[in-house]
């Protein structure tokens, strides 16, 4: 620790070069922080369903493959299942293709399955009574200035009506709030009646996207999931019942294996970083040959010279890395807020910080080891004579 000022001074001996190197380390760790938190957000959700209050049943093969609506009563009859609802993805857009609306066609029970959706009883009544009625989250309503009583032309990117028209008129009959424990993005959702969707829809009549199963005993989740899937075993519509988190994760896997993408991108970035920071350190030590020789002359041991150069490299990485992760941590909530929640960047989790710190230290050691060995082996007499 008493060598810290020496290490610090050595690091900033060439200010511009060190700052440029730190900037690239900041950039690399900023990217890492954002990508890794996205990855963790997608990959959480254990394989065990134990403890879940609700399960999601979808097609075993692909979540875009629909299931027969007739399955509802059969699932509901299974012991341990209290209530079953279903939903269908609608793929809504409003006025412009970039105005994406998370919209779902839902069964009558659906809103009861989600107590986190807080809808005034009068509005709920109006929703049940209106065939083309829709309820929307407050954040979504705010974004487009929708009020109760508005008639909106919601378009589907996927489903045309029977007459070929892709525009589905809907009446806003309710605006809901969500409780604190609600899943991300729920306050931006739009829900309307599956019956309306099913009657007017040109394809896929009588089918649903997925079922939501409410359990009477969360500790029995694994067994109940197996019983539900047994219903359609060996049929063309085999199902897979899992927790909501696992379901969301498989939704994300449609896009690709996020973990692999993150590892791939970061591998390339960190490889470049090792070369860059390694070059900085090698140059820094070469320039300081005579200074290191003086330290050794004075009586600094080979080991302490080795440690000082290693510490310098690790300090370089930790400095840039912490700034990068710090910016990533600050940026996540900022982007989420700035986009009105449309882009949802999760904040950095502990695991991202820990992995980041480990990476900083490992890369620091990697980058420092050759220059440090060089410094350690330096021959005093030759170095002093400039040989």
């Amino acid at each position, binding site marked *: 620790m*008493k*060598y810290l*000022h*020496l290490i610090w*001074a*050595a690091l*900033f*001996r060439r200010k511009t070069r060190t700052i440029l190197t730190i900037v690239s380390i900041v950039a690399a760790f900023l990217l890492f922080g954002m990508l890794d938190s996205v990855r963790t957000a997608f990959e959480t959700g254990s394989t065990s369903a134990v403890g879940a209050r609700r399960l999601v049943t979808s097609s075993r093969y692909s979540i875009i493959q629909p299931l027969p609506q007739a399955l509802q009563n059969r699932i509901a009859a299974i012991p341990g299942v209290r209530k079953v609802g279903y939903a269908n993805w609608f793929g809504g857009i409003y006025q412009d293709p970039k105005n994406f609306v998370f919209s779902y066609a839902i069964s009558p029970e659906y809103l009861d399955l989600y107590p986190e959706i807080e809808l005034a009883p009068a509005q709920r009544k109006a929703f049940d009574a209106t065939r083309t009625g829709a309820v929307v989250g407050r954040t979504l309503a705010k974004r487009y200035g929708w009020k109760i009583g508005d008639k909106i032309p919601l378009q589907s990117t996927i489903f045309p009506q029977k007459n070929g028209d892709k525009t589905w008129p809907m009446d806003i009959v309710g605006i809901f709030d969500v409780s604190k424990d609600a899943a991300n993005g729920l306050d931006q959702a739009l829900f309307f009646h599956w019956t309306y969707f099913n009657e007017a829809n040109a394809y896929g009549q009588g089918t649903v996207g997925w079922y939501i199963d409410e359990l009477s005993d969360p500790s029995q989740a694994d067994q109940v999931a197996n019983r539900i899937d047994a219903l359609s075993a060996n049929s063309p519509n085999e199902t897979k019942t899992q927790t909501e988190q696992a379901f969301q994760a498989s939704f994300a896997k449609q896009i690709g294996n996020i973990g692999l993408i993150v590892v791939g991108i970061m591998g390339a970035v960190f490889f470049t970083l090792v070369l860059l920071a390694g070059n900085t350190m090698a140059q820094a030590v070469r320039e300081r040959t*005579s*200074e290191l*020789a*003086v*330290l*050794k*002359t*004075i*009586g*600094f*041991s*080979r080991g302490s010279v080795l440690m000082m150069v290693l510490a310098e490299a690790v300090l370089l990485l930790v400095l840039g890395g912490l700034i990068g992760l710090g910016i990533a941590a600050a940026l996540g909530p900022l982007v989420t807020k700035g986009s009105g929640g449309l882009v949802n960047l999760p904040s950095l989790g502990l695991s991202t910080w820990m992995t980041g710190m480990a990476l900083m230290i490992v890369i620091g050691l990697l980058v420092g080891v050759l220059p440090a060995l060089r410094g350690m082996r330096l021959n*005093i*007499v030759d170095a*002093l*004579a400039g040989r």
Partner: protein
Amino acid sequence: MATLIDIRDVSKTYTRGKQKVEVLHHIDLQVAEGDFLALMGPSGSGKTTLLNLIGGLDVPTGGSITVGDKRIDQLGAGALARWRASNVGFIFQFYNLMPMLTAQRNVELPLLLTKLSAAQRKRNAGIALKLVGLEERVTHKPSELSGGQQQRVAIARAIVSDPTLLVCDEPTGDLDRESAEDVLGLLRTLNREHGKTIVMVTHDPKAAEYADHVLHLDKGMLVEQATV
């Protein structure tokens, strides 16, 4: 007076590739405690090589070197480093200060190897800088000091841990006459009043006049001259 440095039959051979060059040939030399010795000789005669052996920066190929009561030619790298830290102060032609550190931090460097607290290190560095007449310059970096002042900071660094022996390789080689005389006067004070034994390599006969004895080295062999 007691002998501080006892060099017996010392040879030094450098191997460069397949070629072997014997730079020092069977040197015998005794330096008394409290002596101020100047080493002169033509370029390439082996002055720096001999000085490095005396200071424990290098080990001889043959012969023995005893400083105080220690056979330093038999020490390993680690033990030699520890021995240097507490017994020798080094002064070079080009000062060799750390450019990023203030005068005080430069002088403190050898004290980092001791058990002294930060406050004690600072105090001792202050005393050493005062001794070389630079108490006003403690916060200056080397680039803000003249050559003579930088060399005096280097002298403060060499004496701060109170070694018995100072080895100086052309300490005035890069200085103008006036600064050179300041530095030489300082070395003489350290020798006379603080009892430091000094071995100094120099090309400059005027500088050699400050020493008690002058030895000439020629092609790796010692040629003694009359005491100045």
